[in-house]
């Protein structure tokens, strides 16, 4: 079920009302979450519900077994069983064909022809997200940071919680699971806050991302036909598409969770207003970055050890992050490129220079801040070209056309409407950058009429500028 669909517009209020009607019974509320989450997921393809159920059962049982087991080796075996099962599913559904193709190519390079057929595998939506979420539970239980749950329904609800099931934020068991044990009381201001965040998420997705996607697709799909300046524009459109799409999804997910009395982690914190790439990565897909930091980077040694081990760890983390996005070399190069951006400031210990919000308390940034933001933005746009390209060759031909004389020509495509919408979007995001999401604080002190008019204006913009067809979220494919 898509957040931006009529189905969801009916599903959400129905579940919301049922949920608060049974608010006196915590188990019933959790059971309702499980059932509605399975319905939400099964709407797309019910066959893959068995994967979620299997993952849930395995990790639940392993969690309980870990609590009863003191023997170090046996505990390790249990942990690795969970990791193997979860990553095994992920590996098969997401990476099987990639490894097979590369294996065949590598052997044919050495003159050995191998006959092996690729499988027609459908990637289950959200598998990368819920796999990482359940893994965090087993690892935390293994490391004794978290007590395992005996409540199977609460655990199932934690794994399948529909707002963030298919595209995050990837929640830690430590943060989300305890929320299923405690009674949730309806909080008016939290629910209104949730509605506001859903509205802004829908605007980001349906107005910004989908409209930018229209032109980004035209330009990327036929890139050889356009001048360098148009290709730059295409990359910028994709930059806003992916941000609007993914952060929009996160806003809707977090907002929806608020309606049910849950607090999910902030997943995006205005990343395009970052002054360096380290700041960008503290603000972009926060739940994934922190997951990799805690479960991969730190176990690898983190920033301890010599320069070479630091460099190695940074590269590993970015390469794995790229590979997490998909079975394509373009994602790996995107990750490597970000590692290259990050390393100079990391080695020189400048990676924690910009921890606060840019131009805090001011309307405009100073010249230095503005230039730093512009450079960081340009670097991310450059990297997104690899992320969006069909393959490596496409990415390089795209770049070679950008760095040609045609860069100085007037772009063939000049969608004025998108420019106006982007200007409006950037302005609102800038004004709201000190909040959790752009409109979390805007207009809060205005009278009710002005506030409602502001929200209605956003609804009107959605209705007037949304695409006619429902478009899925990009991150569903990851």
């Amino acid at each position, binding site marked *: 079920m898509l957040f931006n669909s009529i189905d969801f517009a009916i599903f959400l209020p129905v579940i919301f009302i049922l949920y608060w009607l049974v608010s006196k019974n915590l188990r019933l509320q959790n059971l309702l979450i499980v059932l509605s989450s399975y319905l939400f997921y099964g709407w797309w393809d019910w066959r893959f519900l068995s994967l979620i159920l299997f993952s849930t059962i395995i990790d639940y049982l392993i969690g309980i077994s870990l609590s009863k087991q003191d023997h170090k080796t046996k505990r390790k075996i249990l942990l690795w069983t969970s990791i193997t099962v979860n990553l095994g599913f992920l590996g098969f559904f997401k990476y099987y064909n990639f490894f097979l193709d590369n294996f065949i190519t590598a052997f044919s390079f050495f003159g050995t022809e191998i006959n092996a057929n690729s499988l027609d595998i459908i990637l289950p939506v959200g598998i990368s997200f819920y796999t990482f979420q359940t893994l965090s539970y087993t690892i935390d239980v293994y490391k004794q940071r978290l007590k395992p749950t005996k409540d199977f329904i609460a655990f199932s609800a934690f794994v399948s919680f529909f707002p963030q099931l298919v595209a995050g934020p990837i929640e830690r068991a430590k943060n989300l699971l305890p929320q299923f044990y405690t009674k949730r009381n309806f909080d008016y201001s939290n629910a*209104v806050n949730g509605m506001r965040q859903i509205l802004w998420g829908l605007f980001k997705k349906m107005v910004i991302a989908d409209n930018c996607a229209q032109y980004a697709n035209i330009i990327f799909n036929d890139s050889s036909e356009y001048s360098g300046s148009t290709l730059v524009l295409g990359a910028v459109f994709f930059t806003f598409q992916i941000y609007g799409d993914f952060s929009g999804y996160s806003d809707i997910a977090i907002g929806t969770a608020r309606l049910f009395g849950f607090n999910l982690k902030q997943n995006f914190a205005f990343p395009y207003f970052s002054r360096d790439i380290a700041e960008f990565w503290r603000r972009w897909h926060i739940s994934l970055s922190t997951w990799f930091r805690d479960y991969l980077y730190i176990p690898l040694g983190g920033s301890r050890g010599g320069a070479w081990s630091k460099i190695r760890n940074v590269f590993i983390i970015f390469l794995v992050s790229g590979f997490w996005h998909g079975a394509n070399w373009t994602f790996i190069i995107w990750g490597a490129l970000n590692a290259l951006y990050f390393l100079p400031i990391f080695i020189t210990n400048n990676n924690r220079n910009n921890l606060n919000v840019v131009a805090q308390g001011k309307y405009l940034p100073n010249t230095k801040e503005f230039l730093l933001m512009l450079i960081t933005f340009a670097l991310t746009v450059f990297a997104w070209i690899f992320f969006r390209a069909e393959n490596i060759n496409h990415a390089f031909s795209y770049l070679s056309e950008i760095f040609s004389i045609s860069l100085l020509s007037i772009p063939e495509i000049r969608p004025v*409407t998108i420019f106006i919408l982007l200007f409006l979007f950037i302005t609102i995001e800038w004004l709201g950058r000190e909040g959790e999401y752009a409109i979390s604080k805007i207009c809060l002190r205005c009278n009710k009429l002005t506030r409602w008019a502001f929200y*209605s204006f956003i609804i009107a913009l959605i*209705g*007037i500028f949304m695409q*006619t067809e429902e478009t899925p979220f990009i991150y569903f494919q990851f």
Partner: protein
Amino acid sequence: MKKFIQHSILFSFFALAFYICAVFVFGSYTLRNLKPNINFKLGGNTYSRLIEVKKIDSIDILFLGSSHSYRGFDTRIFKKNGLNTFNLGSSAQTPIQTQILLKRYLDRLQPQLIIYEVYPPTLSIDGVESSLDIISNDKNDIYSFQMAIHINKIRTYNTLLYATTRKLLQLDNNFSTPKEKEKDLYIKGGFVEKEISYYQPQSIPKNEIILNETQLKTFVKTLDIIKKKNIKLLLVYAPITKSLYRSYTNNTYFDSLMHRSGNYYNFNEMINLVDTLHFYDSHHLNQKGVRLFNEKIIKLIDE
């Protein structure tokens, strides 16, 4: 919780009122680029046709269908043969629009025969474009609302909202449209004659007809409406250029489907026309082609 629901309902009313105003302001005072989901186009031959149909009481033959209908059945030729006809075709008319027009005008027109032009692409599309044409140029009633729900696209909803607001504010009461526009001449009875020109052949890639489920279901329901009124019905596949016709890889499938639906005649198999002589584009007859096609169909009716 109670307060939240109360406020949500109040806000919904407020937002709806605001939305109607916003759609009206955007629809009336902004450039076309800035209103991609409001597509109100008042005027043209659909407007003339729908003004005229309201003044007609009973006819012998009613034509329905896409532009192949209103550009293909010349009401003057039928008149010469003693047949009183009206052409209720409209641009890219899909069964969803055919049904709404029948519900509105069938009782008034009381035809003895309906000639329903069927063209595969109009059974393959969602019907948004045609709905906008009818919403802009006809009255808007409960059937328009049903059509919008049926199509379920934001452009149809917004245009319906905008058109209804305009009608409530009586902004188009003095509107009139010229009978002649560019190369088109509107003829009494709903036909549109195009200034004579000839098709320049182009290569057309092979194409499979994939019919839209919703349109097919509506098509069946539309035929039921006609059958219930005991009106004779001819399903007609009007001639298109041979090159386009042959580009469809599954014509037999479409033919068999139509044969099962009623008395069906595929004129692409019944009349020998020349692409460069009898058409002005790949799928519209020019006046020479119209004459031959209409004579053939009159002969068929006589038989």
